[in-house]
């Protein structure tokens, strides 16, 4: 059960990062973690470092790219931004999500009626 949960989380996390970068523009790892914390509340209170594995995966897929820069406390860090392919992927995923949630919604609605 927990394995399924982490797979879903993996996929969800990747999507959340993509969406975050799409909406907020280039961010470093810390900034991404803060945004996700806001949005997902208890999903990532501990083990914040796992965001970097997702970031690597997204880079390997070619959906985000990174560049070195300076953070707000004058330290070096990598700044990630979404790529054109990443934007395309995001659009595809959102479409999928809409379709699935629509179907599920209709199924649930059916049950309620009978």
């Amino acid at each position, binding site marked *: 059960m927990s394995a399924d949960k982490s797979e879903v989380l993996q996929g969800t996390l990747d999507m959340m990062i993509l969406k975050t970068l799409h909406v907020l523009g280039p961010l470093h*790892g810390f900034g991404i973690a803060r945004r996700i914390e806001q949005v997902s509340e208890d999903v990532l209170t*501990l083990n914040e470092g796992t965001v*970097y594995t997702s970031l690597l*995966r997204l880079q390997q897929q*070619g959906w985000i790219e990174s560049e070195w820069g300076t953070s707000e406390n004058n*330290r070096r860090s990598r700044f990630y931004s979404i790529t054109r392919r990443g934007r395309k992927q995001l659009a595809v995923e959102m479409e999928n999500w809409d379709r699935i949630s629509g179907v599920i919604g209709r199924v649930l609605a059916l049950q309620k009626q009978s």
Partner: protein
Amino acid sequence: MRTFLSKLCALFTRSQSSEEEFETHLALLTERFVAQGMAPEEAAVAARRQFGNAGLHQQNLRDQSRFLLLSHLLRDLRYAVRGMLRNPGFAVAAILTLALGMGANIAVFALMDAVLLRSLPVADPQRLYFVDYAGAAGLGIAPPYPFLQRMQSEAYSLQSVAAYSGQGQLKIRPESSANFETANGSRVSGCYYQVLGLRAALGRLLTAQDELLRPAVAVLSYDYWQTRYAGNPAVLGSSFMLDGTSFTIVGVAPKGYSGLQPGHHDDITIPITSMNLGPHDGDGMLVDHNSPWFQAIGRLASGVSPANARAEINTLFQSYMTEFPVSAEARRDQFHHIELVSAAQGLDNLRKQYARPLQALMAVVALVLLIACANITNLLLARATRREREFAVRIALGAGRRRLLHQLLTETALLFFIGAAASLAVAFAVVRLLMRFFSTGPQPMQLSLHFDGPLLAFALALPLLATLIFGAAPILHVLRTVPHAAIKEGSRMSESSSRMGLGRALIVLQVALSLILLVGASLFLKTLRNLHSVDPGFSPSQIALMQIHLLESTYPESPARLAAWDRILSVVRTTPGVQSAALSAATPFDTSGRHAGFIVPGYRRTSDVDSLINLDHVSEDYFKTLNTPLLRGRNLSASDVDSAPHVALLNQTAARHYFPGRDPIGVEIHINDAAYRIVGIVQDIHQSDLREPATPFIFLPVRQPYDRNFRLTLLVRTTLKPTALAATLTRQIHTVAPDSLITQPITLSEQMDESIVNERLISTLVSIFSVLALMLSAIGLYGVIAYTVARRTPEFAVRLAIGAVPQQVIGSVLMGTLRLLALGLVLGVPASILLARAARSLFYEVTPTDLSAQLIAATLLSAVSLVASVLPAFRISRIDPASALRAE
């Protein structure tokens, strides 16, 4: 390009930079907690807790990278396999080419290793040396036995030195058996195994004490123990009879050691003093001061250099020669000084015999490999070009070039490694074939070919190298592809002409190499035919041979033996199917050679060698059985017995050489001290070499023996199949002469074939390889023409559309082929002449500049090339100009 490189670098520096990232992240977290009111240390701890285990995260990052690489590799492999299945023709052609080309190389290399390169499996073989006498005539063997004994006691530069007399056939009767059998035996000094530094696999090995023969002991080889005694440890303590003495087996030599001569196995090793036993030809040799008959192998004492050892032993030798002088001529030509010859690889008879042919073979397979590689390159080039559009599209869609490079590399590597695996199978088959060639005949060569470390490394290095060299060209080309230009339909690469040039050059090379091989094959076949048509002086067909040994213990006296031989001859002659039968000490091409001192009254010897003549003892009907005519005088008969006047026959060459202008008939000559009168002259028989002219020969009657005659060969001319007859004859002979051993049944034709095994081997192999080369060239040519036609289809379509006749277009393509062919021939013909000259010692009565071979080869090549070009050229006529142009 810069971003590409930077990304490549980034991959390798990732782990370092992640550390920095993590540190920044942790610092920011800590600051946040501090801003929320925590104390700095608390904040740091809380930050760590929130971040999680940094080391674990690093590990996950590494795993993620590795996972990606692996999944990419698997995906590339799947893609490569699918690609191969889609284009099975290409894949099969490529793999077959590789398998045949590399397989042949590996097999010949394994053979070369076994024959030429391998060291003896003994301790520190570099410190072992043979002690040989040497003079103007060259290198000999060991000086006489009394000198060995002197070395053993007085040569301080040698830790120990042993005598080795090998490859004798011992007639033994194991205690468990009632019959005698033969085994390969070697007689050695007691310290033999000590010189070699070997330890027993079972029991113990020989020691100096064993030379006393109290009791007589023997050591078995490991392989003989396994095959003859089934590896039973109870063999220790069992015994066998040899020369009337009981020998006890005390040990087994270590696995992998089979004697000092590569290619021959010493089954049983016994002390050299066993020469003194029994009434046979050996006794007296150990005290003979002047006869060399064995090899001496010594181990250098520690700290002594070979030069110093040689100097010391030479000093001993010079004083020995003063004590036991020989003729001045012998002193100068043979017993002049001592040489130390490295014994690390054992005796070099095998190497001397097979070195040139093996080197020729290696050259041949190298040529075949070159052709194979040229073919592969062409195939790969053609294929890469076909896929240009596919690659261009993928690059345009955003596929990384690095990924494409990986994928192409994987495809090529997969191809080559499948080819390599197949080539190992081919190598096994070729090696088995070669071994079968070598292991026939009376002295079968037993080579142990190991497919071990260095060989496998060689086998793997080849495909790796090939992948890099021949796979690189197409891959590099793809990377230089400009996507837009490629996608545009009907484009022609400007580089295509240079690539076409490479493809064409490769074809020319292939044609030239194939020509060389074909010429070589026809020259070798001609050699073989010439050798077969040499008149050996007798009719070899339908003659069966058998060696008969009379046991010394049963027939110790000469009269008893002569009576036995008589009985044997008469029973054989009455056997149905036997047309004529005779006995002889030696038969043509049996690789034996017996000389004796020959004194002719009135003849001045010109050299020491001139005083020796080849000797054979024959019975009546010997020349009748062989179909060798008598030229003058009378033949030997059954009445030439010991009590009758001693007579002899000479061959033509002997008569001409020793009696120029005189009639030898009636002259009394001396074989050392014995007197014989010449009564007849026979035609020359080639005794040992088809290439060399016959040597002087004297034939003595078997009943007036000069030597002890325990062993003679039976010759039988028969209408039946020789194998069937052998069994019958064996039975018959045993009824009249019990306690006789019959070995090595063979036909005279087979025995003759043995003497030209080199030539037979080389011609077979070169013929096979040249056919292979021809096939490969045809495949290559077909591939290139097909590719040309496919690429130039639009151009041809245009030409056809504006009114050209298909035949004209086909004609122009075929002209292109002919040009390539002509270039290849122009290159190949002079090269083949040069090589033929270099290899002329391998040929027989073949002139290297004889162009008939070149003509045949060129015709064959042209015919095959034209056939290979016809099919793709024919496709031109099927081009529908309209649709082809529409596709533009």
